[in-house]
């Protein structure tokens, strides 16, 4: 049997496997939230989800449209506020930050502020929101984004959110909490990690049907290509059934592919 699935479904399923049971994750709007819901409904029923506006560990009835809407604390453990959530992250209690982004560089720095010159921008985006906070405070940052040369760039136009900044030691030197940083980038082509020594991006696995050459071609900087590159396991039947039936029945996220 060949399963049919689209790129967004692939990204969500691949990402959800990083959210281990009994861990804590701070999520942004949209796909990251759908991913956390999928993880909860598959391998990680005790995954604790935090929302920046104050919602903690809800029994999410449906996908929230906003990280501050009432679904984010529906039958939740706590309905608190932003300072509570952000300081919980800063105290070291939150394992994962899960974000999106408009541009990303080889050190995992994210731009969600402007394209072009800051003072005279070609495109203005919303800005950090809570992304910079989560990626500064949480132990490991997961980033989900579409793979293309215009997004994976040598130098982002604006570092909204810190990855490894300029390389080894730079986060620590800047004053960011020790032992934190980007962990995995999950795209529609591959899963990317970081080289321990150079803190630059490497290919960890390519998705079914994707060539390593394609990943390199769609990346605007030199990727580290290890000798051994795994194949990302495709979405399972169970994952797809739950994702389509329970997580996003209105196809708000997975319909965007």
């Amino acid at each position, binding site marked *: 049997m060949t399963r049919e699935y689209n790129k967004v479904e692939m990204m969500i399923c691949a990402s959800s496997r990083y959210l281990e049971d009994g861990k804590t994750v701070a999520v942004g709007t949209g796909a990251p939230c759908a991913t956390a819901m999928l993880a909860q409904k598959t391998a990680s029923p005790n995954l604790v989800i935090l929302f920046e506006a104050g919602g903690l560990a809800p029994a999410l009835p449906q996908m929230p449209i906003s990280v*501050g809407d009432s679904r984010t604390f529906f039958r939740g453990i706590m309905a608190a506020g932003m300072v509570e959530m952000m300081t919980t992250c800063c105290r070291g209690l939150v394992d994962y930050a899960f974000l999106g982004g408009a541009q990303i560089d080889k050190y995992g720095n994210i731009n969600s502020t402007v394209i072009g010159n800051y003072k005279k921008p070609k495109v203005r985006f919303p800005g950090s929101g809570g992304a910079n906070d989560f990626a500064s405070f949480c132990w490991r940052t997961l980033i989900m984004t579409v793979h293309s040369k215009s997004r994976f760039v040598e130098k982002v136009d604006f570092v909204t959110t810190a990855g490894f900044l300029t390389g080894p030691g730079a986060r620590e030197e800047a004053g960011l909490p020790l032992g934190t940083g980007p962990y995995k980038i999950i795209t529609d082509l591959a899963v990317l990690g970081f080289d321990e020594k150079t803190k630059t991006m490497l290919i960890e696995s390519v998705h079914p049907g994707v060539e390593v050459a394609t990943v390199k071609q769609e990346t605007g900087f030199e990727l580290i290509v290890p000798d051994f590159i795994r194949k990302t396991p495709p979405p399972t039947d169970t994952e797809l059934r739950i994702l389509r039936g329970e997580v996003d029945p209105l196809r708000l996220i997975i319909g965007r592919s």
Partner: protein
Amino acid sequence: MNVLDKGINALFMDPEPDNARQFFAKKSRAMTDKRMNEKDAVERFIPDGCYLAIGGFGANRIATAVIHEILRARRKNLGFFGHTSTHDFQLLCAGQCIDRVDIAYIIGLEARGLSPNARRVMESGEVQVCEWTNYALAARLKAAAEGVSFAIVRCMLGTDTFKMSAARVIECPFTGKKYAAVPAVWPDVAIIHVHHADIYGNCQIRGISIADLELARAAKHVIITAERLIDNTAIRMRPTQTVIPFYLVDAVIEVPFGSYPGNMPYLYYSDEDHLAQWLTVEKDPQEFKKFLDHYIYGVSSFEQYLERCGGLAKLKQLQKLETLVDS
């Protein structure tokens, strides 16, 4: 104090706590009836040029009625505190009300997409900007609420967000650790929508409080809109649930469905059709003008706006969409 690094953008507000204290020294602590209508509240507490902050989170628990009145009163050159501002920011851009903004999240409406008009305004260069993060802005309010001139945070460090802010890097006097010091902000006025308030301004909020408790304490003037006015006795029977005490509050306005078209936890969900309509109509300046005239400039009250949006039938539908209801 050694400052190791500093953001290059200008600070919009004075972070001096003794100046803020001078203001609060004179603010009345009398428990008086503070009810008034949106018009009077805007007239008295939101002059042209003042620095405004809005409670809630973009399109959740926002004080729409007062924002509409700001547009109708043709307020200009407002400063704005933009921490996850979505529909509220879109409204202020529609009214061309602001000329400077502290930014954490603007233009976007989260999963709904970006506002074409707000984007146009922000790309035009007409509005002076300063970058922050959501937590940095919450921490700025918290510092003000605590009566001190700055807070220290471990975010922003190392990024262009820091460079384009007005934050400064300092070291911990105990550990040598680096922090971003963020300056206190005492907004001139805050508008906050709550579930219950008494006529004196004692407020209860159900569900997440976002940064509103810090905001109510930081702002020099506070305008409250409430879904429902309740008796002071009810406040006094549940003092644990009071989150904003009366002496912070200047105006109390009862506005049922006051967060519409946003979500109000336990009461009604957001009107996604209406919000989608905004994003569509903003693409065409001609259409947008007509839209604004119809929904905002051409109505004289929030009730009339609700009528034009579908009235009771629509509101009942939004009540049904709200999954979070009382047990």
